[in-house]
């Protein structure tokens, strides 16, 4: 009896996860509708003067065929923008932390301190330098987004 040994080439199709990140800025616009009521919308930021509040949205898309995990978005806050405390959000479950040392270290807001000795204090909004969002996973073909608000100094 011959044993047929089937050897087959195993093709490992390593279809890479392809996750993209796109950033966009928005500002509030108040208009009056036909009924005379004020309508507030977020539009692309283009009329920005000191004091204007901007909402930055980082959109994620997994256009590959594999599950992506441990997604970490690191957004340095632009110079001349001041982060608005507690404004960082995410669409899917995430962990949010912040840096006051240009991204070297990250801590949660309640644990973010600046200074030593008597000068040690809970970081002020003006001292935040980076925001980090950590998402557990993003399915193939799925999208998500993380966002934050900041004010132009």
């Amino acid at each position, binding site marked *: 009896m011959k044993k047929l040994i089937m050897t087959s080439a195993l093709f490992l199709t390593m279809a890479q996860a392809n996750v993209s990140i796109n950033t966009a800025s928005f500002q509030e616009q108040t208009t009056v509708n036909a009924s005379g009521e004020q309508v507030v919308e977020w539009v692309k930021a*283009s009329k*920005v003067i000191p004091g204007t509040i901007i909402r930055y949205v980082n959109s994620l898309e997994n256009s590959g065929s*594999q599950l992506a995990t441990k997604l970490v978005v690191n957004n340095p806050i632009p110079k001349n923008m001041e982060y608005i405390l507690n404004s960082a959000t995410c669409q899917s479950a995430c962990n949010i932390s912040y840096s006051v040392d240009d991204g070297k270290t990250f801590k949660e807001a309640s644990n973010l301190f600046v200074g030593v000795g008597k000068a040690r204090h809970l970081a002020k909004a003006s001292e935040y330098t980076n925001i980090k969002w950590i998402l557990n996973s993003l399915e193939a073909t799925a999208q998500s987004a993380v966002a934050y608000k900041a004010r132009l100094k």
Partner: protein
Amino acid sequence: MNKLLSMVAIMALSTMAVNAAGTDYNVDITNSATLSFEVGSVAQDTVTSNEDTFKVDRKVDVVVATSDTANIVVVPKINTTSDTKPLTFTVTNESNGRQDYILSASNLATGAATKDAGETDSVDFATDLKVCDDDTCSNGDLSNTNIQFSEGESKTYYIFADIPSNASDEDRGSIALTATAVDDDSTTVMTDDRDTADNKTAVDIVFAEAAGDAANDAQYDGKHSALSAYEVVTATIALVKDSCVVEDGITSDDSKAKRIPGSTVRYTVDIDNSGSADTESATLTDTLQDDLTFVSGEIRDEACNCGTPAGSVIADDTVTANGQDITANFGTVTAGTHECAYITTTIN
């Protein structure tokens, strides 16, 4: 070498001015983020997002204020320029960059409320209004000429007006200084882009100033104004003449004396200063009829009482005659008082 380069880069970034007015216009604000992730527990290459950039627009904000703490007191007919009695204002550019303005002086309408509680404007000092940059107007009227301000700059300006001769005691004339934003290096009034379509890559203009004190100065209209006022403080003179017979040399009861040749007739001229300022060098001239002869005269410090002169004689004030021409020198008549010239004559 690299460390030195990066240090210089950080310094350059930190000199991007962010002062009281905020980030300068035309500065680009760029946001970018990085993404790291794993597939099957294998770290993938970090992905960098696009750069989202917008330009900081022009926030046009100006504040005009008066530094006068009270109305500027004037008398009618003075030349406020040569007498150095201007209304004083400051103009401060609170925009986030250089901004040019034109200045103008305008008269507040009679009846409108002035800047001080409970007062209303009662006179128009609209003649020959001048806006000057020093308190002698040595550079002439700068109204409606382009004036450039740097970010945060504050300058002082002076308004002069002609005070007409018919201005009355206690008249209040309010005048506003208005600063209007104009295009760079021009006198063309700026228009703002608040309601126009988006332009992410060009510098838009957004008016951000408050409503001012002049008429029709609304919030966000590209101009601001403040009021100050001239207050007229002057003497208000009224003269009342009277006469009475002192004695006629015949009737024994002087109170019944008649005007006959030989009678002594006393003329009185009452000068009443009901204004708020003393009148100085008050001189009355009068001419006696030919059939009267001047005897003597004196000035007293109370209202006239022809029959019984009231008050005390003011030694420095004189009544003199040159033929029939009588001159009464009242000198200074204090605000709120009367003086009386008693002129004694006889009927020829």
